[in-house]
């Protein structure tokens, strides 16, 4: 990790990092498609995890090691497991019957359209300098605690409030 060098040639040439990128992005997209088409909610959760680990791999390709590890820690260790807990706490046999709703064709059209628009925009845009730059871990920390100190504190406050709110909301239902 961190040693991936920029493999110079661009544009249509199949460099080794491009191959890695293609493999990882196929994993990401396949996992994502699995999440939205799977009929089993537990499978959907595990496929989400696969997709998000793929995203962590993409972060590695973008030389953002810290973000990749955060992704593994938060999504792999926390969010997936909490989601699984909640699925088990609710009625899981109900999920079989309520996968898709009647908006399905419309939703399909909208998302395809959005994808086409965004892709065209991305290709049409002129991305002048295309050199990946690595960021030192310590620089990230420095910037986080100096330039972004107040947003950082706000974010931790948001987490705290969300924690308390989640406890209060789930306790409320218990009393009723």
């Amino acid at each position, binding site marked *: *990790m*961190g*040693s*991936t*060098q920029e493999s110079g040639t661009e544009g249509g040439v199949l460099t080794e990092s491009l191959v890695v990128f293609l493999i990882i992005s196929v994993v990401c997209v396949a996992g994502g498609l699995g999440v939205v088409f799977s009929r089993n909610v*537990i*499978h959907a959760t*595990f496929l989400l*995890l696969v997709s998000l680990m793929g995203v962590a791999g993409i972060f590695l390709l973008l030389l953002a*090691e*810290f973000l990749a*590890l*955060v992704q*593994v*820690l938060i999504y*792999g*260790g*926390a969010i*997936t*497991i909490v989601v*699984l*807990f909640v699925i*088990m706490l609710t009625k899981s046999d109900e999920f079989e019957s309520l996968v898709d709703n009647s908006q399905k064709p419309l939703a399909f059209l909208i998302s395809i359209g959005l994808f086409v628009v965004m892709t065209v925009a991305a290709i049409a845009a002129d991305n002048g300098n295309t050199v990946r730059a690595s960021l030192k*871990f310590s620089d990230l920390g420095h910037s986080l605690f100096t330039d972004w100190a107040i947003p950082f504190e706000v974010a931790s406050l948001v987490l705290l409030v969300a924690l308390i709110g989640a406890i209060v909301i789930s306790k409320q239902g218990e009393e009723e």
Partner: protein
Amino acid sequence: MSLLDLLKTISAIMGMLTVLSVIVLSLTLLERKFIGRIQMRKGPNRVGPFGLLQPVADAIKLVAKEDILPTWVDKVIYWVSPLVVFIPTFMIWVTIPVARDVVIRNLDMGLFYIIAFSVLSIVGLISAGWASANKYAIIGGFRAAAQLISYEIPIILSVLAIAMLAGSLNLERIVDAQATKPYIFLQPLGAFLFLCGGLAELGRTPFDIHPAESEVVGGPFVEYSGAHWSVFFLAEYINTFAIAALTTLLFLGGWLFPGLPGNVTASGVLVFLTKTYLVVLVIFWFRGTYPRLRIDQLMSLGWKVLVPLGFINVVVTAVALKTELPEIILGLISFVILASTFWIISVRMRTAPKPEYTVRLYDPSLEGLNAR
């Protein structure tokens, strides 16, 4: 990355796999022998000289055994989850140095990498439990998840204090920083938190509630047999060794020992392995000595004792670093906090009111009252 680098890395990984497998075999035998000694019996001694071939026999038997696929399991997840448990346990060994420069890839964020990937194996436990289509398996899986999420916090907090002291997340630098003083003297509280959390993360006695044999008959692994079960087993023992190795690196000075050169690979590896096996013996000693905690006791220990202690540890360390307190005072403060915690717990255990057991006999006249 050139081809030579790739070959080097691959050969290093293969070497690591081999060494770790041998270490796992040695650990199973060591555990049975050591616990045998604690229980005043001999332990395995029939297979090979002094029973040395016992783990080999176990391994051959497990591989040669039938692999059962129960009817109601979710096939894909059932077969994949041993790998999901197993791969992270191997991946964390990529960055654990055994001696100076004896490591596959020394990462600058080594400690963070280890924490991030050790969490990932919980998912394998849950998915194994769910895919087994067995109530004990799923209860065990969720116990594992609850336990591991709770005890991850004390581990992270104790490691955070170490990173603050050493000023790095790189394991080699952390060991270098301990040249004159192992951090166990500066951070006895941190060492206690780390070992406690590590034991809970491994699911070893006293915290083995997820494979608890008398309650959930082996937890997430109930339905697995043969080779797939042995993959879980392998992962568990590699994790045990990893926790012991991390304790050695973070608190006991790694491959450094007064009087021995730290730069010589052979002596470094020897010192490291000796220390690690001693920590492993301590872990086995706990298993031979302590009873299992109940799940509510486990949760209250984690959230009411270890997490607050972890925060206290971080704050004390930060204040000591900011005010540049002498290190001996930091160690003393940490020790006093640890000792007073033990004292408070022991006093509360002694003075706690004895639970009154009421035996409820079946009374048919209460049938209507109790029925809901």
